């Protein structure tokens, strides 16, 4: 269905890239055990793999920088276009290095940070699961493969945010993050599918190669908007940014890794990855850059107002993500280069700062910037790391953040809307400078806050990460040409789809950008100074922020629950009558509409051929029906119902269906008996529904009845009746029987009868169980999972049998009569069974009569007596009947014939002569036994009630 694509000039690596991803997944599964056995050093052990992978990917730098691409094809579900094919170009490489490098450090850090936590093992495995998914995301060469990992990052993020699951806040934030990113994910899925159907493939490289075609395609706009929705939610762009600060519920290593360095950049990655294919249009540039600018400003401003270290960092992260989006939206060589550089710089310093925040929290027990002061003396190493990181964040030379910022100013200065963009960038950066001071410098200088006595330098795992990340910021800043430039260059080249001319340098000379940097710095320091005032001002205007998207989210959830509850209350009202009304109403509506939608139908009412007795019979039935509805007393209603049944039976007789009539008479009689047995004792029901509902019900009923009448009148049978002709002609020759109906039942359509007696059997079991299996305390209500409740078994119920009273009241005559009747009726039933194949009768009627004999006996002499006469448990009899019927059908299989094929044999009976004997007859015997057992095990227990 989908086409595949060999990148021309791409080195094929074999499965090594997918293996890299898989290896981390395996480690994730093993992590809990590693933790159990390695104990404190588990973090270090687990970090080995990511570091090795970092080295592995680093080894590609040279080749990739010189423009090479590596790919490994791995087909997964080609029919759906989902493949695990990976490719490694500059962009992927940069991310892969970040994911593994930072990941390793974070694992070590977590080992110290969560030391002794009971669930540390799970934490490692969630973190590694995320690492693997994120790596997969950035390596995928197939859009749907990318999506698979995309969703997995959301899931692992959910599990990590809710890691401290006992706190409701943590659970709520986890859910919020999952719903926002998950919702975006679904939009993304739709978008990718549209893109795929537009481009005829899900292989990114192939899509890039036909950018022109895509941009002009009808599906371009919806695809882009949906994909961007996915990217924006993931990368916390306005107005979806609100989940990120909430996600700070997660343990700090998670915030540092997922919610700053890597996962939140997945959206950025996607935008970058797809801009060669989709970018460049007004729609793209407009949407992406605008959203970016808004996010950048909003994030920076909100960051300034926070007092919690992590929230400060979270909002500043939002702002930086905005900047990235903005730059990528603008597109072009410079902007791309700036974006990539900024991305690298941000990952380094923000990761470090988050970890520092964690260390401070860990050592002082607070994250409130208003009380954190003068920690520099007690936590020197952390202080150095924090200082370097925050200077980089503030964009001071010689740190890498400076280079990135300079570049971004170059971009704004060359952009179409110079003033706005530059102003926006400067403002945002100024605020971020202030934030950097608050986060990275303020807590360390000055005199120590007396409340922070227990503060102390943190252990190696906790300072190692920050130090390394922060000093990398310095190294890259001072010597951009060595590592940073090749990486950034290659990445930008990948985003642009062409090689890069310019290079990263620390010093550009006295340019406008430098001037802007100075302004930014001073403005930043200024806003740090007046920060208190700003916060107050904001508090005064705080009203507007209460109407932020968080509110929308809450409101949406409440609305959803309200709607759901309302709708369900209406639909699933619990009123059986409403259910019936809707169900039958639907039937009526669909049927009648389908009949009439092609205009009126011609129906012929033909009264000519009605004979008077037929009319009389019909009248009788209708009258009885009317009586059933009208009469008050139950008994008379039951009797009327019986009349209806007998009337129907008479109809059967008139039209040559004696078997049918016989069965109908018997069944009707039994029905009446059952009704009386069940409802005789129960008091009359008094509730009468109001006239309105009566009228409504009548309308529905008449509708249903009318439709059925129409159906009958319209479907007057075609003359050709292939089936019946065949049966009639083959009944004697093939079926060895003269009663065609019976031959159909036991031979032509024996399978139906097999099912039929099964139904009977099950029903009998059901009746018996319902009556005998009772709760010890019928009325006490406990939890509705049945298993926990004690049930009285039949053994315990054995005492329930005591109806000697009846046997006394039953008259002498009945008893004596029954004594004779029992054998007579049994004999008669055998007779019916035997003749059934040739004349009306058969196993079913026979069985019923036999059962009737015992029922009669029971009424005469009571249960105990019947149990004495009855040589077997009715259940067992049913089983035997089923078994006989089954065997008679299976015999054919051994004879190499299809199931239930009749095997016949002439049997010589002296005096009678040759009698054909065949499996269908045995089958009928099975039916006889089953029916007898069924009837007994239904009536006898009911009679006890």
């Amino acid at each position, binding site marked *: 269905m989908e086409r595949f694509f060999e990148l021309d000039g791409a080195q094929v690596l074999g499965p090594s890239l997918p293996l890299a991803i898989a290896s981390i997944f395996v480690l994730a599964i093993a992590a809990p055990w590693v933790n159990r056995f390695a104990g404190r050093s588990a973090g270090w052990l687990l970090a080995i793999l990511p570091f090795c992978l970092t080295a592995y990917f680093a080894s590609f730098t040279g080749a990739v920088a010189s423009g090479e691409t590596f790919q490994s094809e791995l087909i997964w*579900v080609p029919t759906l276009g989902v493949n695990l094919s990976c490719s490694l170009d500059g962009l992927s490489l940069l991310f892969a290095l970040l994911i593994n490098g930072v990941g390793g450090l974070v694992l070590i850090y977590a080992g110290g940070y969560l030391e002794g936590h009971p669930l540390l093992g799970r934490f490692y495995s969630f973190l590694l699961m995320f690492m693997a998914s994120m790596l997969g995301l950035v390596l995928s060469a197939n859009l749907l493969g990318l999506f698979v990992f995309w969703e997995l990052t959301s899931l692992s993020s959910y599990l990590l945010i809710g890691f401290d699951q006992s706190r409701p806040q943590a659970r709520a934030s986890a859910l919020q993050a999952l719903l926002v990113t998950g919702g975006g994910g679904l939009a993304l899925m739709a978008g990718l599918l549209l893109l795929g159907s537009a481009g005829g493939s899900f292989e990114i490289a192939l899509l890039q190669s036909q950018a022109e075609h895509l941009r002009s395609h009808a599906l371009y706009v919806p695809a882009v908007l949906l994909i961007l929705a996915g990217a924006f939610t993931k990368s916390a762009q306005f107005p979806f940014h609100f989940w990120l600060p909430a996600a700070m519920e997660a343990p700090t290593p998670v915030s540092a890794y997922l919610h700053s360095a890597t996962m939140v950049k997945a959206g950025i990655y996607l935008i970058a990855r797809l801009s060669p294919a989709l970018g460049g249009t007004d729609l793209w540039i407009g949407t992406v850059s605008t959203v970016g600018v808004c996010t950048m400003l909003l994030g920076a401003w909100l960051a300034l107002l926070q007092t919690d270290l992590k929230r400060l960092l979270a909002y500043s992260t939002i702002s930086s993500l905005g900047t990235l989006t903005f730059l990528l939206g603008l597109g072009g060589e410079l902007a791309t280069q700036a974006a990539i550089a900024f991305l690298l710089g941000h990952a380094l310093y923000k990761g470090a700062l988050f970890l520092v925040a964690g260390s401070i929290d860990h050592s002082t027990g607070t994250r409130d910037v208003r009380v954190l002061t003068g920690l520099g003396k007690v936590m020197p190493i952390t202080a150095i790391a924090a200082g370097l990181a925050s200077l980089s964040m503030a964009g001071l030379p010689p740190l890498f953040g400076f280079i990135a910022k300079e570049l971004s100013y170059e971009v704004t200065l060359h952009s179409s809307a110079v003033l706005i963009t530059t102003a926006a960038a400067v403002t945002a950066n100024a605020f971020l400078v202030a934030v950097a001071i608050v986060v990275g410098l303020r807590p360390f200088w000055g005199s120590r806050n007396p409340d922070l006595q227990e503060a102390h330098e943190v252990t190696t795992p906790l300072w190692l990460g920050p130090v390394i990340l922060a000093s990398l910021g310095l190294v890259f800043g001072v010597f951009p040409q060595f590592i940073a430039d090749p990486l950034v260059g290659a990445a930008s080249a990948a985003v642009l789809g062409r090689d890069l001319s310019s290079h990263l340098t620390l010093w550009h000379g006295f340019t406008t950008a430098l001037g802007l940097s100075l302004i930014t710095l001073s403005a930043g320091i200024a806003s740090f100074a007046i920060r208190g005032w700003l916060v107050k001002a904001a508090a005064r205007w705080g009203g507007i922020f209460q109407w932020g998207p968080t509110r929308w989210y809450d409101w949406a959830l409440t609305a959803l629950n309200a709607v759901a509850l309302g709708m369900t209350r209406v639909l*699933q009202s619990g009123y059986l009558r409403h259910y019936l009304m809707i169900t039958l109403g639907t039937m009526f509506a669909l049927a009648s509409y389908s009949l009439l939608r092609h205009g009126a139908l011609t129906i012929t009412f033909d009264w000519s051929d009605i004979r008077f007795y037929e009319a009389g019979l019909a009248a009788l039935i209708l009258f009885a029906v009317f009586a059933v509805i009208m009469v008050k007393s139950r008994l008379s209603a039951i009797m009327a119902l019986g009349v209806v049944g007998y009337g129907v039976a008479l109809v059967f007789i008139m039209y040559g269906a004696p078997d049918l009539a016989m069965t109908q008479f018997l069944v009707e009689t039994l029905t009446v008996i059952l009704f009386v047995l069940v409802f005789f004792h129960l008091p009359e029901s008094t509730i009468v529904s109001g006239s309105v509902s009566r009228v409504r019900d009548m309308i529905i009923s008449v509708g249903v009845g009318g439709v059925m009448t129409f159906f009958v009148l319209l479907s007057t049978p075609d003359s050709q009746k292939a089936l019946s002709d065949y049966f009639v002609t083959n009944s004697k020759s093939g079926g060895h029987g003269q009663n065609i109906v019976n031959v159909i039942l036991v031979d032509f359509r024996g399978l139906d009868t097999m099912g039929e007696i099964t139904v009977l059997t099950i029903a009998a079991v059901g009746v018996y169980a*319902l009556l005998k299996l009772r709760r010890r305390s019928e009325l006490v209500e406990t939890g509705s999972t049945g298993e926990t409740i004690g049930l009285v078994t039949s053994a315990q119920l054995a005492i329930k049998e005591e109806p000697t009273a009846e046997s006394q009241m039953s008259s002498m005559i009945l008893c004596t009569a029954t004594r004779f009747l029992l054998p007579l009726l049994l004999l008669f039933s055998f007779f019916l069974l035997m003749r059934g194949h040739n004349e009306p009768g058969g196993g079913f009627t026979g069985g019923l009569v036999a059962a009737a004999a015992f029922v009669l006996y029971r009424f005469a002499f009571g249960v105990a007596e019947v149990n004495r006469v009855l040589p077997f448990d009715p259940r067992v009899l049913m*089983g035997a009947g089923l078994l006989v019927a089954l065997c008679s059908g299976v015999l054919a299989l051994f004879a190499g014939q299809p199931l239930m094929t009749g095997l016949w044999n002439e049997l010589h009976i002296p005096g009678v002569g040759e009698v054909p004997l065949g499996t269908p007859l045995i089958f009928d015997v099975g039916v006889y036994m089953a029916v007898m057992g069924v009837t007994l095990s239904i009536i006898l227990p009911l009679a006890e009630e």
Partner: protein
Amino acid sequence: MNDVVLVLPLLIPLLTVALSLLAWRWIAFQRAVALIGAIALLGASVLLFQRVYSVGTIVTQAGAWQAPYGITLVADLFSAIMVVLAGIAGLMVVVFSLASVDKGREAFGYYPLVNALLLGVCGAFLTGDIFNLYVWFEVMLMSSFVLLALGGERPQLQGSIKYVTLNLVSSAIFLAAVGILYGLTGTLNMADLAIRLGESDRPVLVTAVGMLFLVAFGIKAAVFPLFFWLPASYHTPPGPVSALFAGLLTKVGVYALIRMFTLVFVQDNAYTHTLILALSGLTMLTGVLGAVAQQEFRRVLSFHIISQIGYMTMGLGLAGLVESTELATFALAGSIFYIIHHIIVKTNLFLVSTVAGKLCGMVELKRQGGLYLSQPLLAFLFLVPAMSLAGMPPLSGFFAKLSLIKAGLLAEQYLLVATALFVGLLTLFSMTKIWSEAFWKPLPEESPASRNPPNLSSKQMRILLFPIGMMALLTITIGFCAEPVFSVAMRAAEELLQRDGYIRAVMGEAQ
């Protein structure tokens, strides 16, 4: 012509029913027979599947009466798949029952009833005769009635009454429709019906009868607005029973819908399948909203059954509407894949809910909790099917959803796709609700389990977790082996859409 493999899925459960009844008082024997029977059934179904997979549709004419005169048993790939699924669900539930069903129920025919249910289900999947289909439906229904009411607790009885009544209405409609079809065509064999209705001179009437079938099977499949019986009853019986129901019953309805509306009623697709499509959307939506409104483990799951029935019929509707055969096949394959995924996942979730209920001694989510800490394995085993249900990759549900969404987009049914996506999100929402309430949240003080911890022996626990683990494994496997599974679904869909293969197989040289 004569394939024993084809009849085994009927003979095995029937035999177990008969034997268990013969040994009515001997529970240990019934347990053994049930287990052996379930294993045998699964084995037979697998044999049947690989037979059909290798040689194509197989047929046996019961009683050796040539179609359309006798009753024909047919197994095309779709039927075979369904039988295998029934076998899996059946075995898992029986195993689970061994450790969870109480003495009382066991003494009153629990095991024969379960087997009778499986018999009815397999019969419905394998028969090629419309009236015989009715009979198997009744077998299935009757046993479900009894299983539902067995034990006779208040909620059970209340649920049963609604369930029984509405399903009997459906049977009455079904029966009438069969009668009318016979009047119209003089035949009952589905393949023969397909031929004759194609030539029928009363197309309007044919479509109208089709509507009767749509309603009758719609009730069984719990399609909007005919699903009321399901949420009213599914949470009332013992866990394994509702697991079996959740896995199989509604899917038999879906199977019948797919069979009838790909084989028999294809004269007026523009009308019928548009209707099916509309119903699908509404079913998804109402079902998932119902789930959002629930606060009880099994009730949430029950409503989700409805919403996912919508996905299954969605593929059917699309398949009937699009011009390109390739796309139609793809859409229908999506439905089939969804059924495969759903039966396993849903059965499993109900089993998990049972264990959770036992451990917390309570079924309301509000009063459950703490399982994340106390039962890490169970927590993981819940997460797999739950996330699969929510369509999280790389689990089976993801590909099920993906294929249907893709089909919908290619068919340009954007509104329906939007609905399906939104429903997907809400599914994720209520799965996380269960996760956060029953697993993450600490066990509330007032919950009985906090006062007197549940008494589940480790042996019992192992038996309970075995089927759950097996099916979780299966869910993951289907996810990773989505390609082979989906290509099987594609083949099945192909067979369904080009009916003449089926017809020729059934009618033999008669045609």
